């Protein structure tokens, strides 16, 4: 294992960097004003998440995370940003009774969810399985997808087809009016 000096610490540093990238991307995605920076934050978050998937013994899903989230989802959202005007306007001068309350309440809800679930997960005892049925390699995933999970696999392809057709129909219906 220790063929390279400090290899454990190098791996731990990379792991902490993955966590930092994920957290920073999520913060950028949730807190910036301009929506295009928010999309970029989502892409950064997906990149860090791919690193975490790699540490969870699944390089296949790390590849899929980069391919689908950064390559497909973020690019599609950027197309949506191009076709609409999503930037939030300057704060309107509505007579709001308590202008400070809303951010505080949402921050409190977010912090409450985070602290509650973090406390739960830190206090749980996650027992390792007694025996491993499958090692989770790409070969095992492929075999399971084509045998045990073949019906959900086909249903996912059907869902994607229906989603694409529905997206075309919905986005087309407004065009004929003008």
């Amino acid at each position: 294992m220790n063929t390279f000096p400090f290899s454990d610490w190098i791996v731990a540093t990379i792991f902490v960097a993955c966590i930092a990238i994920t957290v920073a991307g999520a913060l950028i995605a949730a807190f910036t004003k301009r929506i295009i920076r928010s999309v970029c934050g989502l892409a950064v978050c997906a990149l860090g998440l791919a690193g975490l998937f790699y540490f969870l013994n699944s390089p296949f899903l790390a590849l899929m995370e980069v391919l689908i989230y950064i390559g497909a989802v973020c690019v599609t959202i950027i197309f949506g940003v191009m076709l609409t005007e999503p930037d939030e306007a300057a704060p309107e001068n509505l007579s709001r009774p308590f202008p400070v309350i809303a951010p505080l309440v949402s921050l409190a809800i977010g912090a409450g969810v985070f602290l509650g679930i973090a406390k739960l997960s830190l206090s749980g005892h996650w027992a390792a399985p007694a025996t491993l049925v499958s090692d989770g390699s790409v070969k095992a995933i492929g075999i399971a997808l084509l045998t045990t999970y073949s019906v959900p696999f086909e249903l996912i392809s059907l869902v994607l087809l229906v989603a694409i057709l529905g997206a075309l129909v919905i986005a087309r219906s407004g065009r004929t009016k003008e």
Partner: protein
Amino acid sequence: MNPALIYSQPAVYLVVAAFLLATGIYGLIRRRTLIGMLISGELIFAAASLNFMAFNRFTAPDQSVGQIAVLFIMGLAAAEVAITLSIIIAVYRNYRSIASKDLNELKG
């Protein structure tokens, strides 16, 4: 516990997933446009995927079940984004705005 083996602790992944979920919920409440809410929803999807993967790695006897579940989550998220963006574009054509406070009529 050896601090160099921090990546073999399931609680670390679960806390990161809880943070992603909390950030997604905060953004879902605070964002005033539909695309911002969609991005926050994607963060919640990411939290669910990370939870699936962490429990799959550390507690499941069959190591491929969680990976397949996360693959299905990714497929459903892609379909959801396609549908949501087409709805957003249709809304923008009709209202010339995608701010959520302008969408206050029910009859289409």
